[in-house]
């Protein structure tokens, strides 16, 4: 099972590979893009993109020299026609330099790139929101080699999709960067703080109504307010537990470490560490953390042992036990039921 990690500049590549990433992904905003379109984002990230073709060439070559792979993300939800033409040229150059895979989300761009037959792998971004077998089949027929699942799929759902398409690769989120909604159908802009920031973190007050115009009785009103408070608590976990880390520098927040055994058994090829815009130190610690769990799984540890390690490694097991930090909270239920005794045999 491969560890996929982000880089935001060329100098991050070597430390990230040394820490244990098997594949790296990065964004690129070429100068001509900024000149032509007046915006500094190609792939939903304003920051953390490289800008020079020379950097791109160096990343591809250096990754290959280390026996690793590099992937270019062009994964906004949609593009205009002139933007697509610019991106197609970028894709062509990336492929020409020997880049390994393009991460795409917009089916129109995907279709255009596949028609070019660039001899490069296509990974479907989580932004494309592929969450069922029929959808994976659809994208497979369109030319996709790997589906990156969106957040909030259940482990059983992942298993079923992967089982129904044994020739396709699948990648899942494993650490960092929660999203409260669904990235593929969130049509907002992460505004600067003075305008409210991302909508999921903006200061909203909710007032409750019944759709039939009747009054809400007091007990329900109270329950709605409590639900609101619970939701706020959940979002605190999703926003990296107040953007905190453990004493060792390991990240808190969205995490699927204890599910790696299940994911490996169920046909997931790669696990993704999110956070392209994060500082290098955070990326390295995240890779070390994921690797420490992945290696236990690979060496044959039981799912229970993996769970025990993963939930204690940051010395705050109560955060894990809340379930609110989890990408795959059903593992907690299985642990409580004493079920995760399976031993996973994996190729090393």
């Amino acid at each position: 099972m491969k560890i996929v990690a982000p880089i935001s500049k060329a100098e991050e590549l070597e430390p990230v590979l040394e820490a244990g990433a098997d594949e790296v992904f990065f964004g690129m905003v070429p100068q001509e893009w900024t000149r032509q379109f007046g915006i500094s984002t190609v792939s939903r990230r304003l920051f953390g993109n490289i800008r020079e073709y020379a950097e791109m060439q160096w990343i591809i070559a250096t990754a290959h020299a280390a026996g690793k792979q590099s992937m270019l993300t062009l994964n906004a939800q949609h593009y205009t026609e002139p933007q697509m033409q610019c991106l197609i040229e970028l894709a062509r150059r990336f492929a020409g330099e020997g880049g390994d895979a393009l991460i795409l989300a917009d089916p129109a761009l995907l279709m255009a790139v596949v028609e070019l037959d660039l001899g490069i792998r296509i990974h479907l971004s989580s932004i494309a929101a592929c969450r069922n077998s029929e959808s994976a089949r659809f994208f497979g027929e369109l030319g996709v080699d790997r589906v990156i699942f969106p957040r909030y799929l259940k482990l059983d759902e992942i298993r079923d999709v992967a089982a129904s398409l044994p020739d396709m690769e699948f990648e899942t989120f494993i650490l960092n960067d929660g999203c409260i909604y669904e990235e593929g159908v969130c049509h907002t802009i992460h505004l600067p703080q003075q305008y409210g920031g991302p909508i999921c973190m903006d200061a909203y007050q909710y007032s409750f109504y019944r759709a039939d115009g009747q009054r809400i009785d007091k007990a329900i009103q109270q329950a709605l307010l409590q639900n609101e408070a619970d939701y706020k608590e959940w979002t605190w976990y999703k926003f990296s537990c107040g953007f905190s880390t453990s004493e060792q520098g390991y990240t808190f927040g969205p995490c699927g470490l204890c599910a790696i055994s299940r994911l490996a058994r169920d046909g997931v090829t790669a696990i993704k560490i999110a956070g392209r815009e994060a500082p290098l130190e955070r990326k390295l610690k995240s890779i070390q953390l994921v690797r420490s769990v992945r290696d236990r799984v690979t060496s044959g540890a039981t799912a229970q042992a993996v769970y025990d390690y993963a939930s204690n490694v940051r010395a705050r097991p109560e955060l894990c036990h809340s379930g609110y930090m989890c990408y795959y909270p059903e593992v907690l239920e299985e642990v409580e039921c004493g079920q995760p005794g399976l031993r996973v045999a994996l190729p090393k």
Partner: protein
Amino acid sequence: MSLVNAAVSEPELAFTLCDAALLERLSGLSMPLTARDCMAALGWRETVLPEKLADRALDRIHFGNEFCERLLPHRPQLERVVDWSVEQGLGVTLLTPMLADRGIDLLPRLLERLPEQSEVVVNDWGVLRLLREQFPRLCPVAGRQMGKMIKDPRLPSAEWASAIPPGMQSSLYPKLMRRFGIESAETDIRPFAEPADLQPNGLRLSVHLPYGYTLKGRICKPGSLSLDKQQKFMPGHSCQKECLVYFSRMQRTGCQSPHELPSFLRGNTIFYRHGEEQQRVLAEALQQGWVNRLVLAGDWNENRCAD
């Protein structure tokens, strides 16, 4: 140009219904069914249509939900709505959301019950594939979630909107849709919209009003209301369909844009209500004859509160 007084061409009129139980309210109305009567029957205080269209007979019922897999109708509900619609001479469109495999497995039982040439609004490429493979007698329509654009009701100025223009006007969008047998697409009118957004692009265009959707999640806040704390906000969690009963209005307590559009949360989705700008753009598009169909939010609204 106000929407209500707009001189318009004659688009089709569709009325959406999510809660099959509310069909009773429409059943009691005199024929032919008009948008004004249907909206009044569901508690709307105003008819959000040009006057010229408000009293015209409806053409079609859009039944189901675009946003939540748990609101996929049960077959008896669908049968009631289909039978009633056919009786009234109305076309039927089934709305479908993004689905997990479990939802995909449930779909054939619904699709087989739709009359020949019925429309199915798809918001999931897997649903589209299923339709094409197993139900070629039905007509797929690209749902709002397929036509991507920025719809942030908080945008401070038009510059923010113009930085990321909608993708539907790219020639590749209709090319993609037609490759998969889609001839019609639904859309919202975005904040800082321009009439050109609705110009013909080779697909028949249906426009939703008076709301656009901003975003949705799989996790549902109101749907977690009745769950134990540790069960709340989990992927695929159960619910009591609280969205059919409650909604929340949203008010920003920090900064406000001078162009802020009123927003509300219903189920797992945030919607914004059209302002004058969206109405003006729609009026112009109607005048130009660019809109094939208007899709009225029937019971999925925030307009029926008692205050």
